Each structure stands twice: as C-alpha cells, then as structure tokens.
C-alpha cells in the first residue's frame, strides 16, 4: 500500500464524482446550486483534505459524496457502482462517515459504540460474531483507543471521543472514510494527533480518507491532495504545495485585512505599517523577535544597519539580551515584552 499510483483511471479509484453538481432543491424555486462540474477521484491509500472558507459548501460536498444527499446533477461512483443504486447495507460496507455533530449516545461503553460500526455485517439480532469482535478490537487498537474500551463514552474527553468515533467508522471496514471536520473541537496537540493517525491509517490499511477541515496549516502538511472549494463554487485539486504556488489558496481565502503568506503557509493580519526596523541576530530568538516586531506593524530587515531604528540580539548560553537603538538612544532589554514596551514609548 506504500506506493500509490497517480495516473487517471488506474483501478485504484474507490470514490469517483462525475460532473457533480451540488446544492439544494427548493420548493417553488430554481434549485440552489453551490458548485457544479466537480469531477474528482479518491484513490486507495490517499489522504485528501477538503478546504474552503466558511459557507463555501464543504459540508454539502461531503454529504453528497457520502450519499447522504442527492446531487443536483452528475453522479458518484463507489467502487464503480452508482451511489444511488447501492443498497444502504452494501454502501455501509464500503463507505463510512464521521460527522461534525457531537452526539449524546447515553450510557454506552466505548467498545459498544465501536461495535455499532459492525451494523452492516451483523444479522437482525445485532449479535457480534468472532470476526466482528476481532474487527472491533482491531479498529480500537489501530487508533490507540484500546485502553478506552470499557470506559463510558460520556466520560471521555473530546479527543478520546473523536478517536472512538473514528474507530467506529473504521470498524465498518470501509474502502472510503469520509470525515466532516473531525478536528473541530480539539486543541492543537489533539488535532495533530488525529491527523497523524488518519495519515497512518491511509498508509497502513490502504483506506481512502477524505476529510474537511479549517486547519489549513495542518492540512497543508498532512494531505496527499487538497481539494479546494472557494466561495462561489470554484473547485481546485492539487498537491497542497502546488495550490499555494499557483495562488489558488490566496484567491479562495481572500478577505479584507487578512492575507495568505506563501512563505509560512499561514494567514496573517495586515497591520498598519509602523515603518522599517533593523534586526540583527539569528536562530530561534531572531525568528520570534521578528514575529513580535511584525505584530507591532514593523517590517523587519535583516542587516538594516543604516536604519534609524534597530534591534540587535545578543545570545548567551543562559540569557538573551536585546539592544534597542533609536537614533542616539540605546536601551538593553531582557525580554521581548520589554523590547515592545521600549519601542512603543519611543513611537
């Protein structure tokens, strides 16, 4: 599974959308089209992140691809079969979802919850066979949720809970897993953890994983492919880096007062310029000093000796000192906070 073919129509495509038009039927009105002409393919072992600004229709696209909502036009194929013609049971054996909404399941143990993922395989009693039990254990182990098995779901933290929900989706042993903002309620370490787990899952089990997220930085670092849905329905596909380089990212997220910085791969606020400032120094302290100066509205120039305003960093093993020079005035500071206070008082 380590090597993923990338040519079109190579047989590794598990979920294909053909000229898909997404949106909503409205009674007594023309249908509300969010985006049209979307043709994409999700391949085995591939981790795809769907990005886009709020309200661009990410959830609608996710729901349409998962077969939870009918497309206005076009069709989706799951393992070569038209989504609308597959029985719910067969579909659930090949495709599973994790949704944004947080559900209150009441008093169930984590392993009971994961076992619900065996729904499409069990008979009408819902009794688990040895194979089912094995699949449940496997799914929990691979997500690192095995120690949670006997814990009650309502007692779990948000991160643990999300792992259990993903384990439940995995217990369906699907070819495709679709996750709608799986990291929405989590703090940064938990988000990195979940993304890393999904990435590993795609590599190890050959699952195709599609997830929507607002976490741009993390998506750019983890995704094999990014699908970008911009406001107005424009749809771009590509390696994350390509989309940054060709400007699709900037265009999709354009907004007053905020700009996408292709150098860091993140957004930053426009600040009214406070002028240029020289910055002397290197290493980690210089990096964070630069950030602080930029936040203050300065544009920091390396080697700007001739500038009237400058900060020089003097690094020692156990202490860093900042020398602020403004014309003839000189001050030595022991922290960045002091540097900023000094600059503000000189302004």
């Amino acid at each position, binding site marked *: 599974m380590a090597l993923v073919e990338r040519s079109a129509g190579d047989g590794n495509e598990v979920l294909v959308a053909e000229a898909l038009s997404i949106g909503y039927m409205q009674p007594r009105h023309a249908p509300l089209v969010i985006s049209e002409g979307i043709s994409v393919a999700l391949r085995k072992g591939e981790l795809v992140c769907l990005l886009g600004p709020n309200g661009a229709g990410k959830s609608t696209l996710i729901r349409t691809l998962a077969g939870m909502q009918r497309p206005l036009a076009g069709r989706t194929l799951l393992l070569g079969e038209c989504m609308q013609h597959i029985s719910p049971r067969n579909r659930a054996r090949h495709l599973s979802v994790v*949704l944004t909404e947080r559900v*209150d399941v009441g008093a169930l143990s984590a392993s009971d919850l994961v076992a619900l993922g065996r729904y499409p395989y069990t008979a009408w009693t819902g009794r688990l066979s040895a194979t089912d039990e094995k699949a449940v254990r496997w799914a929990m182990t691979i997500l690192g949720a095995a120690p949670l098995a006997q814990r009650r779901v309502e007692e779990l933290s948000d991160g643990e809970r999300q792992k259990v929900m993903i384990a439940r989706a995995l217990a369906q042993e699907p070819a495709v897993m679709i996750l709608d903002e799986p990291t929405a309620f989590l703090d940064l370490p938990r988000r990195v953890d979940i993304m890393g787990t999904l990435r590993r899952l795609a590599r190890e089990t050959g699952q195709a994983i599609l997830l929507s997220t607002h976490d741009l930085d993390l998506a750019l670092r983890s995704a094999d492919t990014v699908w970008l849905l911009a406001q107005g329905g424009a749809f771009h596909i590509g390696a994350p880096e390509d989309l940054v380089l060709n400007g699709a990212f900037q265009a999709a997220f354009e907004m007053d007062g905020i700009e996408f910085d292709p150098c860091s791969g993140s957004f930053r606020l426009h600040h009214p310029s406070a002028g240029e400032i020289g910055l002397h120094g290197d290493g980690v302290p210089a990096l964070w000093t630069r950030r602080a100066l930029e936040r203050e509205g300065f544009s920091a120039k390396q080697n700007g000796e001739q500038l009237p305003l400058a900060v020089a960093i003097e690094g020692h093993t156990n202490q860093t000192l900042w020398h602020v020079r403004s014309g003839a005035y000189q001050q030595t500071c022991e922290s960045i906070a002091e540097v900023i206070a000094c600059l503000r008082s000189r302004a």
Partner: protein
Amino acid sequence: MHTLERLLRRSARTLALIALGLGLCVAFFLDLALGSVTIPLADVAAIITGGEPAKATWSDIVLFFRLPKALTATLAGAALAVGGLQMQTLFRNPLADPFILGISSGASLGVALVVLSTGATTGFLAAMDFLKSLSLIGAAILGGGLVMTLVIAVARRVRNNMTLLILGLMFGYASGALVSVLLYFSVPEQIQAYIAWTFGSFGGVTWSQMQLLAPTVLLGLMLAYLLIKPLNALLLGEAYAQSMGMAVVQARFWIIASTALLAGAVTACCGPISFLGVAVPHLCRALFSTSDHRILVPATMLMGATIALLADLVAGLPGSSLVLPLNAITALIGTPVVVGIILRRPRFRQSFAG
C-alpha cells in the same frame, strides 16, 4: 482481564433481569391477593391451578375480576414502557412517551365524541356502565388509529424526525381543542363520565376484550424485539444510523407501528395512562446503567409490568372498598423519577438544545 470484566458485568445484568422477573411474579400474586377482600396467597394459588379455595366467592373474585385486571396491568405496563423507550430513542428526547405522536389525544377525541354526544338523560351510573361497553373501546381505537394513520402516512414522506414530532404534537393539540369544545357544550354527568375514562383503569377489561388486547400487545412487543438493532443504531442519531446501513424510513415506520399497536391497544382498553411510558425507561437505564436496547427492551418490559401492577395495587387501596384514579398513582410514581433524572444528569438539559 477485559473479557473477565465484561463477563462479570454481563452476568450481573442477567441476574438483575432475573430479579426483575421475580419481582414481577410477586407483584402479580399480590395484585391477585390484595384488594377490598384479602385472599390468602395459598387460596389464590389454589384458584389459579383449578383447586378449591376456602370460600367459593373468592374463586369468582379472582377469576373474573382480579385475574383479568392483573393480566391487563402486566400487558399495559410492559406495552407502555416499551413504547416509551422506542419513542425516546427515535426522537432522542428524554421526555418522549408512547403517546407523543398523538395516539392518546386521538383516542380521547373518539371517546369524547361518543360519551358527550349520547343523550343527556343518562345519569352518571348509566354512563359508567356505558363506559365499559365495547363501543367506547371502538371509539378509542378509531380515534387513536386515525391520528396514528395520519402520522405514519406523514412519516413515510418526511425526512426529519423533529418535523414528525411537532406534527404529532400539533395533531394532539388540535384534538384536545375539539375535546374542550365538546366538553363546553356537555352536561356535568357526561363530563364526569369522560373524566372517569381519562383517569385510566385496568379493571374494565373483560375476558373477551382480553382476546383483543393480549395478541395486539404481544405483537407490538415482538416487533420491538425485532427492532433492537435499529434502535441501537439510532442512539447515534439518524444520520449515523443511515451511514451504517440502516434503512431510515423503513425502521422509523416499524418503530412507530410497534408503538402505535402497544399504545393504541392500551389506551383503548385502559384509558390514557400517563407517566409509565416516560419513567420506566429512565429507571431501567439508571438500574442497568446502559443504553443498549438488547438489555433495555426486556428490562423495560419486566419493570413496566411490575410498576403497573404495583400502581394498580396501590390504587385499589387494599382493605378498603375505595379505588383511587390510576393516573394519579402513576403520576405520583412518575414525577419523582423524572425530577430525579433532570436534577441528577446535567447533560439532560443539553440534550434539548441538540
């Protein structure tokens, strides 16, 4: 280690179920033995097994009055509790009961139409007699069935459970409004007869009516057993249930159909009995600390029947010839349970928002 833990928990649950079953048997025999006349348990046993009791009249009391009453209470309690459980799961609403889709209000309308439109000359006693007649049951079935058919017809087309819930409530309000109009134009005797019906009673079911009640309730309970798997899937909500391969419209139809059979048959034979359907599922969830319907369905069945028998026992005020309204007793048992749940579970309040 986990396996051992699970095994222990499983056997604890089995034991609790067996204990509930024993409790049901005790309550059943107490209900036969106690009443305006106290009959020793040995004689009750003799009568049931076809033997001769110490007094011949006891035989009639048990066979023609208390046995059908106890059986009715058992069936009705099990039916309402399982119906309530199904509705609470389907609508993800802890306050849902088997009547939430308007069955009891439809039945009330049917009964009100019959009671309140009959001649004003019939006195209260005559009306009481009349209450026990089949035409009343017929009216309740017709009224409840009509509302239920409407709701089921709508359920097949509506995509959202919340819409369905609100529609059911609105049907209920509409028939309630019609009932109050009818009440306004009625004489006190008729109103009293109607109100006597709304108090609910297990005592009005004859052996011939039992032939209708028992099979309907058993059918409804059997359906509930077949629906355990989709009910469990619905714990995650409809969207997830569907994504796991549940046919949503079909499952919803059968869950509502099962509840309609259970609640409809009980309302027709015993009147609108409140609170059992809300309180018993919560009691069982608390007792077994699980939401798993593989345990909850049999547990609510046993616990519902037991509590209905106990309520009937208390309403009969053993040793006196007085009978309290059954609904007053079920409400007195039910309200503390619901209040306790609201106070104990902070999450309970959140679940209204979602």
